């Protein structure tokens, strides 16, 4: 389609088979231009500068805060004493850290597993098109595209213990109302909402993975008398393995750092506190200005960063291996 809009100019002849050859020796050149290397550097310079200023600098600043003992006054006026890794030692030694790390793991693993299974089931279901299938599949993207504050507040109201529609629904089956958002159940509540948020991503990626499995494999196995169930276990799942690994690892990195859905629903109270929300609450929690702990927040954030990057690099290594 786009080829018709291209300028109808003869492609460069064999004189310039290599793009690295500078056009500077061409007779029709009108004015001297920078060497290609310099041009490339000039085009990339804004991005490099941007990354240094708005990625590296905030990260360095965050790390520096975790090595100094900040309080409200020193944050504003400066002069926070350097304490090395004392804050890390203090944080990592707390029972609370261990409890929150476990909660983070439960939140991440349960979210991931259920999202993946649901996403895979839906992807298989949508694999072969049927009337309205593409429209309905597009509708499944809605939770992923909605602002999280919108979904979070809606789930909060649906999970209201007295008037929420979820408890009314349970009541139809004679079940007792659940205090979804109290300290004990908060983790389950935010996991449910987070699964809902993550299903679309899993569906889209796994669906595109399924489209790359040749249909002949299914046809051939059907001729050999394979059942649908056998096809799933012997063809779909093994051939989808690379895509599955990528979906899960990418999902892991995204889920580890989730703040918004949890914070909006429960403010990280009770069992729903994760490393990310804990860090957030120590620095920015509503009504915590009296006891703001920037250094502790930065230390927890840095721990989270290290964990996220470890899994992120694993993802990249895996992807590289697949390309070879």
């Amino acid at each position, binding site marked *: 389609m786009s080829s018709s809009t291209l300028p109808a100019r003869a492609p460069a002849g064999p004189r310039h088979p290599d793009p690295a050859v500078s*056009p500077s020796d061409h007779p029709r050149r009108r004015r001297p231009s920078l060497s290609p290397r310099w041009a490339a550097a000039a085009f990339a310079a804004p991005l490099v500068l941007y990354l240094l200023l708005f990625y590296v600098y905030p990260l360095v600043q965050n790390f520096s805060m975790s090595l100094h003992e900040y309080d409200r006054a020193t*944050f504003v006026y400066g002069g926070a004493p350097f304490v090395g890794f004392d804050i890390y030692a203090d944080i990592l030694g707390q029972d609370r850290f261990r409890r929150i790390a476990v909660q983070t793991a439960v939140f991440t693993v349960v979210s991931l597993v259920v999202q993946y299974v649901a996403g895979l089931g839906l992807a298989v279901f949508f694999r072969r098109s049927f009337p309205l299938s593409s429209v309905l599949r597009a509708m499944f993207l809605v939770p992923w595209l909605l602002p999280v504050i919108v979904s979070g507040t809606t789930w909060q109201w649906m999970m209201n213990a007295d008037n929420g529609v979820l408890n009314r629904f349970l009541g139809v089956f004679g079940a007792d109302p659940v205090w979804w958002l109290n300290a004990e159940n908060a983790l389950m509540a935010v996991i449910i909402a987070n699964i809902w948020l993550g299903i679309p991503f899993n569906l889209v990626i796994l669906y595109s993975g399924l489209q790359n499995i040749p249909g002949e494999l299914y046809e051939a196995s059907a001729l050999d008398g394979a059942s649908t169930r056998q096809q799933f276990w012997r063809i779909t799942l093994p051939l989808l393995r690379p895509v599955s690994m990528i979906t899960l690892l990418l999902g892991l990195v995204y889920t580890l750092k989730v703040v918004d859905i949890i914070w909006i629903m429960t403010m990280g109270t009770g069992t729903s506190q994760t490393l990310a929300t804990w860090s957030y609450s120590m620095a920015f929690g509503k009504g915590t200005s009296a006891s703001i702990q920037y250094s502790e927040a930065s230390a927890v954030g840095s721990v*989270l960063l290290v964990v996220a990057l470890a899994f992120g690099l694993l993802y990249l290594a895996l992807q590289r291996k697949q390309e070879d």
Partner: protein
Amino acid sequence: MLHTTHRTWWKTAIAMVLTAVMLFPVYWMVNVSLTRRESIRRGDLLPFDLTFGHYATVLSEQLPYLATSLVVGLGTVVLTLAISMPAAYAIAKLALPGGQGLSFVLIVAQMVPAVVMSLGFYSIYSSLGVLNTIPGLIVADSTIAVPFAVMLFTAFMRGIPRELVQAAQLDGASPWRTFRSVVVPISRNSVVTASLFAFLWSWSDFIFASTLNREGGDLRPITMGIYNYIGAQNQEWGPMMATAVVASVPTALLLIAAQRYVAAGVTAGAVKD
């Protein structure tokens, strides 16, 4: 033949039920937003006690926030495109030395937790005195979109035929001119995709808004307009859900008007450089 059509319609029916379950929260939000305050707690399945009053409240209270979100969103789009397009051109077409390393950095950048970024930005902004400002929020929001946009543009620009770029160069066009009058116009579709996502992410951003722009008054985005309702003494669910519906409009427009660009973006996020 008859058998297969029968079976596929049966699948359509199941898919509709699944979609309805999946979208129930969205329906519930709309339902609450249309129900009179006194009846919200009754939880009727349809807004029997119908009112548009909550939307009138939105119009009277939330317009400044909506305007701020629009400005921040557009600013984020402009900044994102301005940074990412030339860089992608350098990586894809000008054989940028270290281009692979740069692509690697961009992937890693997307894995940095937003809390960590917001803590760093908060400290920097507070010493520069740019907390609670629109440009400050635009810069922070753009960090969500820039790595994605560079990767999206790089992938697209790699596909631009080499001859096209060379033809412009042979005509004496400078690299900048080639970029501006050949590469940018061809990349139109990617520009749309990158812009849509940059806008949507900035519009939906909660973390940067709630940390870097907490006390910005009217200069706060719509996500903060909704957040204001949370934790109030007597949480007003009607106006809150009505605001949520209004805040979802860009999402709806995106799905209706630009679905193919969305699909391109979702997969691009997960695919390699």
